[in-house]
C-alpha cells in the first residue's frame, strides 16, 4: 500500500507515492498521473496533498547557496526550513522579513502559499521579499523569475500552491535586527470594537500586532481577548543567556480530541483571566513571541485521530465591524473553535501573487476539531458570511471550501490556471475546480 502523507490538520488522509528530490540540478521525475511539491507538510488541509498521485518531497533540498551578511540577501534551496534560516541569520543580526506562526515551514512552501505574519501591515507577505527564484517545469525548462524577469511566472508562482512547477532555488532579502529579543506589550480588550481601536492605534508604532480572542465567550463578553504588539528590541546591554531549548513532543495521538466545548471554555476563561493588569510589558526571546506552539512537537495530534480543520478568512475593511462579530457569534454558539483563535488587521500593501490570500481587511483564524458533519455545516455557514462580505478563505488552511466560493474569493484563478504545469496537480486544486 502506498504510504499516507499527512497535512498538518491530519485531515484528509490520502495515499500517494512519495518521491524525494535530492538534487536541484536534476530533471523532475515522470509521474504516472501527476505530481506536487511537498515541503514540511505544514499546510493544514489538502493543498499539499495529491491523492493517488506523486508527492515530490523537497526537504532534502536543504542547502544554502550564498549569504551576504552586509546586505542580508540569502540564496538557498527551496527545502530549507525557516528554523534553519533563523539559526544561521539571527546570530549575524538578521531575521526573516515575514514569518508565519511556525518556523517549521520550508521557504519553497512559504512562497507557494505567499505566507504572511504579524507584520503584514508593515512588510506585506513573504512574496514582497523574494528577490528571485528558479522554477523547474516538468518539460525540463528552468525559469529564472523575479519582478523584472518572467514577471508573470513570478506572480503565478508566489501563492501558486506549488502548481506552476517545482521551486528549486530562492533568493530572499532578510531584515536587520539588533538582538534576538522582542519588546512586547499585551493588552486586554473586552470586545471586538476595542480590538479595532487598538489595531488602528498600534499600526504606526508597532511592527507586529496580533490578537488572541476567546471564541468561547458569549453575550457581553463576545470577542474579548488579548491584544499583543511588539517590536524587535534594541541591543541589550546585559548579555542574557539564550532561552533553554525545551521541547515536548506528543508522541501518540489520543483516542479522542482533547479539545472539546468543556476544555475549551475552561482554557479560554483561564487564559483571558490569567493576566490581571489591563496591560503588560515584557522582553522575550523571538521564539516565544513568534512560535509559542513550536515548543510542543506534533501538537496537531491533540485533536485526536479524526484530525482538525483550520479556518482562516479575511473580511474587507468596510464590512469587518459588522461581519467579524457575526462570525465569532456563530462559532461561540456552536461551541466549536479552539484554544488559539487569532484576529489580525491586514495592511493595504497589495499582494504580488495571482492567488495570494492577504488583502486589506481583518483576518480571523482558528481550528475546529473534526466532529464530522456538524463541523462542516458550521464552516459552510461561516463561508456564506465571508462570501457575502466580499472576503476570502485561505487555501493553505482549507480542506473543504466549495469550488464556487473559491472562484469567487480568487477571481484571478482563470488567469492563473494558464501557468499550471501540465503534470502538476493537487487534491485541493481538483476539488475547487469541480
Amino acid at each position, binding site marked *: 500500500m502506498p504510504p499516507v502523507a499527512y497535512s498538518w490538520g491530519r485531515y484528509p488522509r490520502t495515499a500517494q507515492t512519495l518521491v524525494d528530490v535530492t538534487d536541484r540540478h536534476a530533471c523532475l521525475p515522470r509521474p504516472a498521473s501527476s505530481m506536487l511539491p511537498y515541503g514540511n507538510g505544514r499546510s493544514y488541509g489538502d493543498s499539499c496533498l495529491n491523492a493517488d498521485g506523486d508527492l515530490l518531497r523537497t526537504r*532534502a533540498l536543504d*542547502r544554502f547557496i*550564498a549569504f551576504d551578511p552586509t546586505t542580508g540577501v540569502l540564496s538557498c534551496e527551496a527545502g530549507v526550513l525557516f528554523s534553519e534560516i533563523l539559526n544561521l541569520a539571527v546570530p549575524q543580526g538578521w531575521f526573516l522579513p515575514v514569518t508565519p506562526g511556525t518556523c517549521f515551514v520550508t521557504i519553497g512552501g512559504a512562497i507557494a502559499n505567499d505566507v504572511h505574519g504579524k507584520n503584514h501591515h508593515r512588510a506585506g507577505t513573504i512574496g514582497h521579499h523574494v528577490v528571485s527564484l528558479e522554477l523547474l517545469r516538468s518539460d525540463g525548462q528552468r525559469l529564472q523569475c523575479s519582478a523584472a524577469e518572467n514577471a508573470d511566472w513570478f506572480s503565478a508562482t508566489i501563492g501558486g500552491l506549488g502548481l506552476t512547477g517545482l521551486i528549486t532555488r530562492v533568493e530572499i532579502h532578510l531584515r536587520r535586527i539588533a538582538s534576538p529579543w522582542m519588546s512586547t506589550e499585551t493588552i486586554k480588550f473586552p470586545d471586538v470594537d476595542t480590538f479595532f481601536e487598538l489595531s488602528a492605534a498600534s499600526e504606526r508604532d508597532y511592527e507586529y500586532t496580533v490578537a488572541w480572542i476567546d471564541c468561547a465567550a458569549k453575550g457581553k463578553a463576545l470577542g474579548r481577548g488579548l491584544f499583543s504588539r511588539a517590536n524587535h528590541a534594541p541591543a541589550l546591554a546585559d548579555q542574557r543567556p539564550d532561552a533553554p531549548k525545551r521541547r515536548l513532543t506528543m508522541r501518540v495521538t489520543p483516542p479522542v480530541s482533547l479539545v472539546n466545548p468543556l476544555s475549551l471554555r475552561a482554557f479560554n476563561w483561564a487564559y483571558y483571566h490569567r493576566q490581571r493588569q489591563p496591560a503588560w510589558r515584557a522582553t522575550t526571546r523571538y521564539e516565544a513571541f513568534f512560535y509559542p506552539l513550536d515548543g510542543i512537537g506534533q501538537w496537531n495530534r491533540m485533536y485526536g485521530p479524526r484530525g482538525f480543520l483550520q479556518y482562516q478568512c479575511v473580511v474587507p475593511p468596510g464590512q469587518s465591524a459588522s461581519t467579524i462579530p457575526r462570525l465569532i457569534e456563530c462559532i461561540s454558539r456552536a461551541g466549536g473553535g479552539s484554544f488559539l483563535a487569532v484576529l489580525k488587521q491586514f495592511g493595504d500593501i497589495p499582494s504580488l501573487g495571482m492567488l495570494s490570500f492577504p488583502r486589506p481587511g481583518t483576518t480571523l483564524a482558528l481550528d475546529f476539531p473534526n466532529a464530522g458533519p456538524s463541523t462542516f455545516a458550521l464552516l459552510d455557514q461561516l463561508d456564506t458570511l465571508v462570501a457575502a462580505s466580499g472576503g476570502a478563505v485561505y487555501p493553505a488552511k482549507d480542506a473543504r471550501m466549495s469550488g464556487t466560493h473559491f472562484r469567487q474569493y480568487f477571481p484571478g484563478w482563470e488567469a492563473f490556471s494558464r501557468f499550471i504545469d501540465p503534470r502538476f496537480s493537487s487534491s485541493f486544486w481538483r476539488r475547487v475546480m469541480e
Partner: protein
Amino acid sequence: MQNVLVVGATSAIAEATCRLYAARGARLCLAGRNTQRLNDMADDLRVRGAQDVAVHALDVNDIANHAQFIESAWQGRSGMDVVLIAHGTLPDQTACETSAELSLQEFATNATSTIALLTPIANRMQASGKGTIAVISSVAGDRGRASNYLYGSAKAAVTTFLSGLRQRLYAHGVHVLTIKPGFVDTPMTRNFKKGALWAKPDAVATGIVRAIDRKRAIAYLPGFWALIMLIIRCVPEAIFKRVKL
C-alpha cells in the same frame, strides 16, 4: 581551527557531519565522485561558517589515483586533524549471490578501496603525530547475516583493519575511530521500510563528532546498537544459522 578531510562527502551522514564542522569554522576538504554535488555542498558549508572548503573529484575504486589525490588534499595544510572515510554502497545481496564479479566489485568499493586509502593516509598521519582517522563501518560487520553478508563481510574487513591500525598509530599520537551506525534513514536505504530502530543522519553525525572529540575507539550509533549487537554476537552459531535475519 581544524583541518578536516572527508571522503565520500556527499553521503547523507558525511554531509551532516561536515555541517557540524563548518559551524565550528573548520577548513574542509571534500572528496567524492559527483563534483556538482560537492560544489553545492561547498557553497552550503561556506555559508554555514566553514573557513575554507576545497573540492576533489575522486573515484575510490580508481586506486592508481589515490596517491595524487592525497598529495593535493594535504597541499598547503600543516596536516589533517580529522580524516573521515564515509563512502560506501549497499549491495544487492541476492544479485551478488549469482555474480562473483558483482560481489568483488561491491567488496572493492566497501572494503578494498578503504584499505587502499588508509594505507598512505595512515603514514601521513603517523608522520604528523596528531589527529583522528574516523571510518564509517557498520553494525553489519559484527556478524554475517543471510540478508546482507557481502556488505557485512566488507565492513568486517574494515573493522578488523581499523582495530590493527588503531594499535599501530596509538603509539604515534594518532587516534582511530570505528563508527558503526545501525539503520540510518538515508538515500542509500530509501527502499527499506522504516521503523523505531531507524535514526536520522543528523543524530548519527552528532554522535560521530562527539566520538571524535572524546577520542573514542568504537562508536555504535545510536548507542543502543552496542547492546543489540552484543546479544547478536553471543548467539551460538548452531542457533544463529537457523534464524532468519
